[in-house]
């Protein structure tokens, strides 16, 4: 380290990592695939991903308004930036689909791109996934679901100041009561024992972290004895009550904002919309019968099966569209959460760069695939010659150059 500046940066980074590891551990990430419901509006649940998609719409409308407010022939500032992005896509559309079709496809392609792009980048803002209400978990629910929770990822109970309280259940004490631990149906004795052990872990942890007095020490007995387990459950209830009296909430965080595409419904709806447009373009360009003839062709058995396969592929496109976007965004979210959990601050930083890249690439891919499928839909089979649907064996004869005789 010759340069004192480099030395300072390295030492600072190491200090940040150590301090972060010691004092700013983040809660264990909970992987929730379903979007959380913030509140119910009449019969409809208002989920957090919907709030985000409304925010995306507002951002897009604002940008469009500001960019076109004072429109000038020689663009400047925001208008210039928006026009640059538009122009890239406009050129791609024209080059891929031709002048006439490219102009038709462009608005939808551009809408898909900007919508997904802004949504993906917005999900990297710091207030996502952390601001929210805490859903209280009652002691009764807690003990009922304890066994299930103990088996899955381990639920984080997050207080309103964002520090995790996790409860590791010592089930080894209960194994003596069941020859097959984790079997389909637990003996009632075993269930009681696991609930008791969970209550014990919970009461001990709350006592240690929050200074409550649950009085678990006064319970006497062995695990599995119903009186002992009941005593433990009572003790943990008491700890929870004391915590509530201090004005602290113990429960699960329901964030107000969540990355739009980590909910499978939003990629699915975009995919369905894209496919409806693709079918619409195909039908309006080729006509209903010619377009349907792509999928239901009875001229020969082979053509019939090729048509069926194309039909299945058409439906599979919706699924592949959906899961590509959903999976990428969910994976990114999990990656960032896990990295922040392992080592706070610096380790997550390069992955933020990666997610920025992935966000724009996925939006681009979604839009480009829509464009490619649209081009395929508007081109009829006759346009691109031998596609394997003609009579087999007779296809390539005319392609053989003159003077070259087939060997047989």
């Amino acid at each position: 380290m010759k340069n004192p500046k480099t030395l300072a940066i390295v030492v600072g980074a190491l200090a940040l990592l150590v301090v972060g590891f010691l004092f700013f551990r983040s809660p264990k990430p909970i992987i929730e695939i379903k979007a959380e419901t913030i509140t119910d509006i009449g019969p409809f649940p208002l989920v957090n991903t919907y709030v985000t998609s409304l925010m995306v719409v507002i951002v897009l409308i604002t940008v469009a308004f500001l960019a076109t407010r004072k429109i000038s022939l020689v663009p400047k500032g925001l208008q210039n930036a928006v026009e640059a992005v538009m122009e890239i896509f406009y050129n791609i559309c024209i080059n891929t689909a031709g002048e006439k079709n490219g102009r038709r496809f462009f608005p939808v392609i551009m809408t898909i791109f900007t919508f997904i792009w802004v949504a993906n980048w917005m999900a990297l803002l710091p207030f996502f996934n952390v601001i929210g209400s805490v859903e209280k978990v009652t002691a009764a629910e807690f003990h009922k679901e304890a066994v299930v929770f103990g088996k899955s990822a381990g639920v984080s109970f997050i207080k309103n100041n964002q520090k995790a309280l996790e409860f590791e259940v010592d089930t080894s004490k209960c194994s003596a009561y069941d020859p097959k631990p984790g079997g389909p149906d637990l003996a009632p004795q075993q269930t009681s024992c696991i609930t008791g052990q969970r209550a014990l872990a919970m009461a001990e942890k709350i006592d240690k972290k929050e200074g409550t007095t649950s009085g678990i020490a006064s319970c006497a007995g062995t695990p599995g004895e119903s009186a002992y387990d009941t005593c433990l459950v009572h003790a943990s209830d008491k700890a929870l009550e004391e915590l509530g009296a201090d004005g602290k909430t113990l429960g699960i965080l329901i964030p107000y904002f969540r990355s739009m595409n980590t909910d499978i419904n939003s990629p699915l709806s975009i995919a369905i919309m894209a496919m409806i447009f693709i079918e619409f373009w195909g039908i309006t360009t080729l006509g209903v019968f010619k377009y349907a003839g792509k999928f239901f062709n009875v001229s020969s058995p082979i053509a019939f099966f090729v048509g069926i396969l194309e039909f299945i592929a058409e439906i599979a496109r919706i699924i592949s569209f959906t899961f590509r976007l959903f999976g990428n965004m969910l994976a990114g979210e999990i990656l960032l959460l896990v990295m922040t959990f392992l080592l706070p601050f610096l380790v997550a930083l390069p992955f933020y760069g990666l997610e920025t890249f992935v966000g724009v690439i996925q939006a681009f891919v979604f839009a480009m695939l829509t464009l490619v499928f649209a081009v395929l839909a508007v081109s009829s089979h006759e346009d691109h010659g031998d596609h394997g649907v003609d009579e087999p064996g007779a296809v390539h004869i005319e392609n053989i150059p003159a003077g070259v005789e087939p060997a047989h």
Partner: protein
Amino acid sequence: MDIAMILPLLAFTDAGLRYIGAGIAIGVGGAGPALAIGMLCGKAMEALGRNPEAQPVIQTNMILGIAFAEAVAIYALVVAVMIGFVF
């Protein structure tokens, strides 16, 4: 170590088997796309070396191809996450 002492430790619990399943799903499911992406990038680099002027076209098509290949890994990931955390 006595075999009688090890046997009780070898219990295959539901949760344990599920995590093994999730691990296999993403591990095997990621191998194919990894090969595919490697081949795609390698071929794209070869093409770039031969014809550097075609860089924009090659790059766009390469990224599209990678997205297709990557989608398979993403399906495996979704399956793994579902095995691990949903069912």
